[in-house]
């Protein structure tokens, strides 16, 4: 034991992030003797390490904030400045640059806390250290040299330099991409490919490597760092590259070992395991509390609230969680505290019973409880809604109408069951209508909330996947078979992920499995007279290869992926075993196969079908649900479409540019195609990019300009722009006095929203003087394009 034991404190707080600061203020306000230790020489190290001017978000905005620590969404500098001012104003007892080296529980209660050479006795300890932990080390000589850093402060300050970035995660790629172009950047990746980073970052990195702006060294490690250079050890040879700066972005060691040494227990062994805490944030060590990101919930606002609540709990007061009131509104059909309501709900709805109750609190923040009367429609077939629906009470009939056919009821779901997983998974339109049978209660969980739940609760995800498969079986093969009969078959299926342009099987191959397309797109083709005839393109929700399930039947066509696809594969042996158990199903199944075979023959007998369609598919236009096409043989290049687009949007920015994909006399310009499965919606932090039931994907006003959607759009159809400030007559005078509007270079994303707020539809089409601009939905592609395409034109 080093140092001297000072007077006994009521509370020691470890970590001066938002959670720790909030706890410190609450402790001070209640007259507790406390100290807050922070290892870094500044407050909030995680946010301090963000790049300059980075936007800090204040989600979830629905939850009220407890305590007085100021916090709202804004730039890194504003947030940090606000907190520093708060600490100064209230004189909080914060010891910066003071690392806590030991927390030892004492036999009679309380702790001995060693920090900065002194030992303090404390009745309670609150750990609010975040997950930054200690940055991982390379283990290579020279990594402590001054030009080696874990953090890029301001990309604008680095120009025309040799830079080496080590790592393959999001932050490594973000640093490399921020510096590429204006510097000579080498990215060192230990593995043979980038697997951990976001797909959009990986794509951009590879593109910029192809463009010569970035050099990526795969299967390479750093052998030695020297002043001005880095020695790399590759799979085949060793190279030395010039390096004035080296950034190590190889992650951090989570503080789990440190916590376990104090006696804190975790919920499991995996990376996603969290510390076991009671509802007062107390760990398995009495008196030791954990708050903030280290608990697995890394949102700043939640951390601030936990800081407030934990001190109240230490004082023996029962404090209602900040989200209690709003969650009670979201769960109106149960009584008691939210904890009791969630417990009840988990009993009633088996799929939710598989999720952690604390995680469900976050899921339910945005849930919409809805009462439906008898016969009322809940979702409608062909709508573009993509929420997930859980039946809390009553019954729901699922009705499906095949194209050109009569609507028929395919299932009746009871309380505790769920639906909507097909649209959620495939990103496509609703494939059935759901109608309330008698009065019913349905909880509608928005796409983003349910996806987050699926990401952290693998058992829930597996359940949803199985339901997806069973309902696909019911939809296509066994319409009259009950779910429980199909369960054994669904359990045997497994998920496979296949890259773009891969052949799944070739014509003539022995049939060994059939597939259900979970996401992506495949091409079904045959060889005839030495050339390929495309029979069809299948999008998510379809299945193929079922003839393989008949004995000794070779593949009648080849199937290859158009995009990266997820498929559910069912092997023939498993299917045979299932049919052997249910011989009565065999007859109906063979009829279905015959139906498919006839459809295939018809497609083959239609000469030339799909020619323009093939071109469109190749260029990926066809995945759009509302694509703008310009007939160049009519277009007089007057740009009135662009001017109209600028004219109808308040920000004066056009959402289209007359560059894009050309085929024959047609141009698919850079303008949003309203994709069936919009990749732009995947990763929007404030959920500002949404799709309405008609299919229009639009950006709401809460866009923070992070650029994720722009990066995720593979077609360059989202534009980042500086919004034009509203001008008035005397703007110039104000500009003279104030030196002009400083929006700090703020950007927002804009994209075509099909002029959803303008009467009469898209302005580009209405304002084309020669009728060259048209909008097409997938149903119109074939007929209308065939009528306007002129094939002798230049390609």
């Amino acid at each position, binding site marked *: 034991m080093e140092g001297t034991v000072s007077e006994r404190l009521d509370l020691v707080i470890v970590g001066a992030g938002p959670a720790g600061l909030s706890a410190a203020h609450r402790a001070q306000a209640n007259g507790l003797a406390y100290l807050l230790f922070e290892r870094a020489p500044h407050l909030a190290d995680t946010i301090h390490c963000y790049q300059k001017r980075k936007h800090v978000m204040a989600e979830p905005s629905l939850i009220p904030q407890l305590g007085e620590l100021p916090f709202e969404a804004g730039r890194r500098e504003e947030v940090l400045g606000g907190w520093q001012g708060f600490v100064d104003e209230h004189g909080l007892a914060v010891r910066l640059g003071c690392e806590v080296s030991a927390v030892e529980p004492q036999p009679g209660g309380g702790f001995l806390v060693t920090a900065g050479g002194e030992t303090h006795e404390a009745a309670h300890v609150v750990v609010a250290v975040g997950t930054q932990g200690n940055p991982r080390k390379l283990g290579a000589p020279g990594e402590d040299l001054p030009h080696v850093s874990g953090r890029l402060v301001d990309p604008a300050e680095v120009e025309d330099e040799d830079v080496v970035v080590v790592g393959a995660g999001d932050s490594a790629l973000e640093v490399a991409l921020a510096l590429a172009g204006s510097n000579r950047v080498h990215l060192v990746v230990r593995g043979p490919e980038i697997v951990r980073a976001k797909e959009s970052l990986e794509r951009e990195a590879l593109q910029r490597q192809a463009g010569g702006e970035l050099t990526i060294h795969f299967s390479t490690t750093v052998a030695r760092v020297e002043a001005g250079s880095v020695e790399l050890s590759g799979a085949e040879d060793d190279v030395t590259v010039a390096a004035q700066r080296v950034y190590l972005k190889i992650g951090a060691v989570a503080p789990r070992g440190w916590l376990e040494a104090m006696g804190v227990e975790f919920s499991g062994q995996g990376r996603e395991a969290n510390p076991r805490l009671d509802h007062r944030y107390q760990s398995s060590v009495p008196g030791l509390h954990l708050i903030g990101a280290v608990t697995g919930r890394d949102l700043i606002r939640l951390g601030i609230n936990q800081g407030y609540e934990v001190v109240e709990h230490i004082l023996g007061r029962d404090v209602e969680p900040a989200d209690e009131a709003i969650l009670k509104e979201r769960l109106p059909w149960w009584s008691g505290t939210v904890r009791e309501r969630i417990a009840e709900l988990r009993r009633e709805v088996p799929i939710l019973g598989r999720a952690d109750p604390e995680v469900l609190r976050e899921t339910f923040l945005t849930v919409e409880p809805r009462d439906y009367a008898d016969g009322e429609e809940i979702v409608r077939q062909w709508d573009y809604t993509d929420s997930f629906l859980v039946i809390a009470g009553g019954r729901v009939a699922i009705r499906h109408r095949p194209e050109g056919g009569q609507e028929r009821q395919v299932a009746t779901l009871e309380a505790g069951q769920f639906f909507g997983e097909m649209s959620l998974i495939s990103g496509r339109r609703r494939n059935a209508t759901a109608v309330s049978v008698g009065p019913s209660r349905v909880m509608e969980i928005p796409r983003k909330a349910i996806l987050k739940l699926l990401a952290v609760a693998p058992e829930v995800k597996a359940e949803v996947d199985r339901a997806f498969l069973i309902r696909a079986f019911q939809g296509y093969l066994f319409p009259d078979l009950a779910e429980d009969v199909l369960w054994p078959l669904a359990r045997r299926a497994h998920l496979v992920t296949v890259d773009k342009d891969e052949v799944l099987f070739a014509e003539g191959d022995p049939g060994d499995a059939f597939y259900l397309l979970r996401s992506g797109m495949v091409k079904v083709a045959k060889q005839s007279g030495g050339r390929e005839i495309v029979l069809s393109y299948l999008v998510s929700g379809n299945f193929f290869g079922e003839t393989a399930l008949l004995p000794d039947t070779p593949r009648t066509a080849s199937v290859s992926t158009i995009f990266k696809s997820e498929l559910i594969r069912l092997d023939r042996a498993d299917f045979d075993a299932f049919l052997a158990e249910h011989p009565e199903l065999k007859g109906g199944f063979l009829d279905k196969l015959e139906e498919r075979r006839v459809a295939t023959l018809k497609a083959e007998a239609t000469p030339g079908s799909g020619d323009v369609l093939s071109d469109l598919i190749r260029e990926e236009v066809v995945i759009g649900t509302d694509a703008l096409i310009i007939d160049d043989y009519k277009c007089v*290049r007057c740009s009135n479409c662009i001017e109209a687009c600028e004219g109808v949007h308040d920000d004066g920015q056009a959402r289209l540019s007359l560059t894009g994909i050309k085929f024959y006399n047609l141009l698919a310009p850079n303008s949003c195609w309203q994709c069936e499965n919009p990749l732009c919606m995947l990763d929007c932090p404030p959920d500002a990019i949404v799709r309405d039931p008609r299919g229009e994907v639009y950006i709401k006003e809460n866009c923070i300009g992070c650029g994720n959607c722009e990066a995720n759009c593979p077609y360059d159809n989202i534009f980042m722009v500086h919004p034009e400030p509203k001008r008035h007559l005397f703007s110039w005078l104000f500009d003279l006095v104030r030196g002009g509007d400083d929006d700090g270079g703020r950007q927002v994303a804009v994209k075509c929203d099909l002029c959803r707020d303008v009467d009469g539809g898209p302005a580009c089409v209405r304002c084309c003087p*020669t009728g060259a601009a048209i909008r097409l939905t997938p149903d119109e592609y074939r007929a209308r394009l065939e009528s306007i395409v002129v094939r002798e*034109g230049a390609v």
Partner: protein
Amino acid sequence: MFLSSAKNRRWRWVALLLFAAALAAYLWERASGRFQHGGSVLGLVLGVAAAVLVVWLLFFAVRKRAYKSTLGTLEGWLHAHVWLGVLSAFLVLLHSGFRFEDKVALSAFLVLLGVVATGVLGAYLYQSLPRRLTGVESNLTGEEISADLNRMAASMARLASGRSADFQRIHVALLAESTPRALAGWRLLFTSPQAREGGKGWEGLLGRVESGEREDLRRLLVLARQHKELHQRLAVQQRYRNLLDAWLWLHVPLSLALVVLLAAHVGAALYWGIDW
């Protein structure tokens, strides 16, 4: 082609029908001797109709920029503009009773003919040029060609750097051949870039430099030829684009002149009386 749009073909029939009606009325009135001049009853009816039509035709410029308007599509408006524009000239002709004594009225009519003629030229260009422009655009946009041109010019500059003064002079002269001069855009309208052949007589240039530089000069000439051809391709694209715009430089000023003359004519008619 835009005027072949089935959806908007009705406007040509509307124009034809109105013309037929006006002509029939004119012939009827003429035969009965009631039509003396533009101030007679039918003359006035035709004159007012033509004046209203001209004002409505001018309104096209407003409608084109009223992006939020739900008053039909702009394509429909342009079809109507073309056919009713042609009709306006015939209506004025009938309104005049083929008498052209009043200088203001005559001027207005001649300017109207100019407006209609330039409009017909524009319609013809809109019909025929997009197809030809698409042919020369193929896969390359103007921006892409410009980028290629810059790359070639940079390669030529690299070849020429450090060479003799003669070599340098040839390099400068070669570049100058494809450098746009003043009013190049307007010149393009009246000269066909395709007619000019690049590289004629260039072989003789080889004798002007030392033998040690000839091989590099030959490479420079190859680059210069490619540069010129690409430049011509860009010029052809630009020519078509300019043509698509240039007719408006006649059509719009003439239309404005027409407004002034029409106002003068109407003012004069009202002031001096309509019963000449």
